[in-house]
């Protein structure tokens, strides 16, 4: 089922981070801009003040009259970097002495220079004014000097600063964007690794997650683990139940079969004998199913905690063939075992034996009387391969894929006793060992079962 998706942690995180860095970048731009503007303005003011003071300094009282000897630098300094129009005005109290009479005057002057932005002759200007007291013939008088200049250089500096602060803001945003991406990436990395760890697991791996996770994810992992444990418990409960049930059925079944055989000997009427025979056959089928169910439960139990023993496959095969000899002889089936290589694998000996036995058991069961079963053990593709071929009916091509499922039996095998669990058990065991089972038919007829184990 596709999960119900709403939003993305990464996107939300990224969005919040970018939003805040954009805000900081804008703030940075504004701050740099305004600080730089203030500094630029101050440096212009300082030059204007220096100019005004140099004019004041050139003033002298000669015979009680003010004389001003404007220094050349007082105006030329205003124009030293950029071309600026410059204006000045000199007043003695309210009497205009020299310069530009209609230059705006700053009110409330003091002895330290005062500044004001204004407009004059159609251009924006900055004015610095200062004054000093002199004693003239008419008594104490304030000599007031104002110097003004246009803002070409100031505006140039400000636009340069503006470009610079824009670049700083933008650069900051770019760098933070990369950092934000990295942060978002690293924040969701534990989620990714948890997902990977869970999806890497085999279908029956219900162990709790033990890999370290950040505190924020502890509740999630804790509930995941508790869910796994509950699932595990309920699974094993049902398996226990099946095994218990099978066990409980098998023993009475054996008693019933013995009784039936005894009865068969006593019964003489042919139609009654037939009925009893069918009864015995049904009992056989039931007890085999019960046996397989027990096997299946055993396999489930053992694959959960797989043993790691060294298994000598050729010896194991020989032993199994030996053990099945009575069964095969009963049907006049010859088993030829061909083990050119001595191969070892690591795994659970009991399970591997069970798997091979199941396959051979099937081969014998479904073989025609007086035929041959061949077993070949070879090493191929870095795997130990056991190939079992018989001369029976073979598999129905359409059903082949389903035969590994539980309680699924071939249509052409209905008259043979079986539970439909054998190949399922083999498949589970192979899976637990990292191996595989594949089914096919021989060209000359009969089934071919191919087991491969990693070496």
């Amino acid at each position, binding site marked *: 089922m596709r999960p119900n998706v709403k939003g993305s942690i990464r996107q939300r995180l990224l969005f919040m981070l970018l939003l805040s860095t954009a805000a900081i970048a804008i703030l940075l731009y504004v701050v740099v801009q305004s600080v730089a503007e203030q500094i630029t303005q101050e440096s212009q003011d300082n030059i204007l003040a220096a100019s005004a003071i140099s004019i004041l300094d050139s003033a002298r009282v000669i015979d009680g009259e003010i004389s001003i000897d404007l220094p050349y630098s007082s105006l*030329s300094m205003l124009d030293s970097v950029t071309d600026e129009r410059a204006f000045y005005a000199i007043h003695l109290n309210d009497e205009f002495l020299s310069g530009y009479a209609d230059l705006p005057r700053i009110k409330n002057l003091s002895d330290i220079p005062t500044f004001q932005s204004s407009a004059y002759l159609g251009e924006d200007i900055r004015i610095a004014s200062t004054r000093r007291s002199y004693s003239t013939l008419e008594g104490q008088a304030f000599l007031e000097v104002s110097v003004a200049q246009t803002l070409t250089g100031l505006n140039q500096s400000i636009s340069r600063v503006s470009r610079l602060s824009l670049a700083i803001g933008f650069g900051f945003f770019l760098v933070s964007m990369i950092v934000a991406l990295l942060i978002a990436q690293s924040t969701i990395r534990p989620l990714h690794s948890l997902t990977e760890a869970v999806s890497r697991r085999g279908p029956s791996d219900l162990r709790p997650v033990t890999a370290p996770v950040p505190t924020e994810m502890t509740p999630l992992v804790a509930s995941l683990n508790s869910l796994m444990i509950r699932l595990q418990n309920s699974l094993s409960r049902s398996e226990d139940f099946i095994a218990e049930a099978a066990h409980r059925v098998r023993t009475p079944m054996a008693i019933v079969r013995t009784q039936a055989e005894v009865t068969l000997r006593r019964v003489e009427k042919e139609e009654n004998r037939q009925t009893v025979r069918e009864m015995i056959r049904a009992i056989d089928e039931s007890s085999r199913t019960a046996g397989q169910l027990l096997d299946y439960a055993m396999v489930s139990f053992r694959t959960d905690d797989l043993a790691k023993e060294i298994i000598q496959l050729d010896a194991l095969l020989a032993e199994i063939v030996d053990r099945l000899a009575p069964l095969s002889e009963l049907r006049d089936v010859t088993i030829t075992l061909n083990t050119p290589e001595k191969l070892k694998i690591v795994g659970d000996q009991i399970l591997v034996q069970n798997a091979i036995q199941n396959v051979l058991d099937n081969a014998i069961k479904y073989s025609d009387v007086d035929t041959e079963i061949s077993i070949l053990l070879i090493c191929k593709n870095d795997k130990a391969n056991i190939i079992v071929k018989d001369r029976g009916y073979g598999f129905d091509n359409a059903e082949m894929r389903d035969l590994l499922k539980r309680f699924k039996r071939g249509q052409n095998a209905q008259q043979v006793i079986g539970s439909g669990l054998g190949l399922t058990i083999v498949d589970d065991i192979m899976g637990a060992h990292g191996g595989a089972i594949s089914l096919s038919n021989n060209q000359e007829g009969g089934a071919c079962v191919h087991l491969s184990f990693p070496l």
Partner: protein
Amino acid sequence: MRAFIISTIMLIISGSAHAFDVEDRKVFKGHDGEPVLRIISTADISYFAPMINSFRATRPDVTIDYTVASSTQVMQAIYEEKQPFDLAISSAMDLQIKLANDGYARKHTSYSAQDLPNWAVWNDMVFAFTQEPAGFVISNKLFEGYAIPKNRQELINTLRQNPKKFEGRVGTYDIRKSGAGYLFATQDARASDTYWRLTEVMGTLDPRLYCCASDMIADVVDGTLAIAYNVLASYAEQSPYIDAFTIVLPSDFSTVMLRTMLIPSTSKNPELATSFLNFALSQTHPTETSTMLQTKSLRQAKQSTLTRISLGPGLLVYLDYFKKKHFMEEWENAILQE
């Protein structure tokens, strides 16, 4: 304000305040009589005619009305009378700067800036198209037997040692009458104290004071003057009697004046003025070989002795009422020794 400006102007000019004095005027007829470019200039017609004629070769339809006036009269015409001239050309850099500074000039930004050195433009309003050094013009005949002075100190020594010889035979600008003379005097005074010593020595020799460079050159040629101080070398070089005198750019320092153009805000045809301005700049600046920028004497002079007057509000300082009064008084005290 008005009263003050008029008083300032009155100091500079002599004559009536209600109409500026025209010295000369020539109309260069175009094909149709329209459009008309009105130029007011301090340069003689003969000096500027070649430029006008090359412009007319590219724009034969344009009629150029060329008016010659003194620098103070150029100021008067534009500052006070707001005459609708399209171009003002003047050698009085301070007055040109004042016009521009006080808002009487148009900004002009379409010139090809890469061709113009920084010193030649002020505020995109004032454009320099010549470099004209001021120097000594010395009569060859009257200096026979004397070493030609190479700098101001040598000139001072020569004059001091031979007061009889040079009595009444030294000439310089009357800075009360000549804008260019005042500009040179103030720049010389700013550069070195030698100026004042020279002025005082000249003052003892009953100097002749002139309004114009051409009169000084003429008096040197005819032997009235042995030496003229602060004469524009560019004018002297053009004199047909160049053999009669020697031009010396003083080796201590020579002041270089820039002749400038601006488009007055009263211009009725600023586009045409712009195209003439661009034409004039393209004729003089790009190659640095124009005779207007590199006169013969400039080429021969040692570069480190040349002091180019820089365009800028510093020039306004000497137009200040007090400053001017002060300077004039000092100058009069030095030169007019009874």
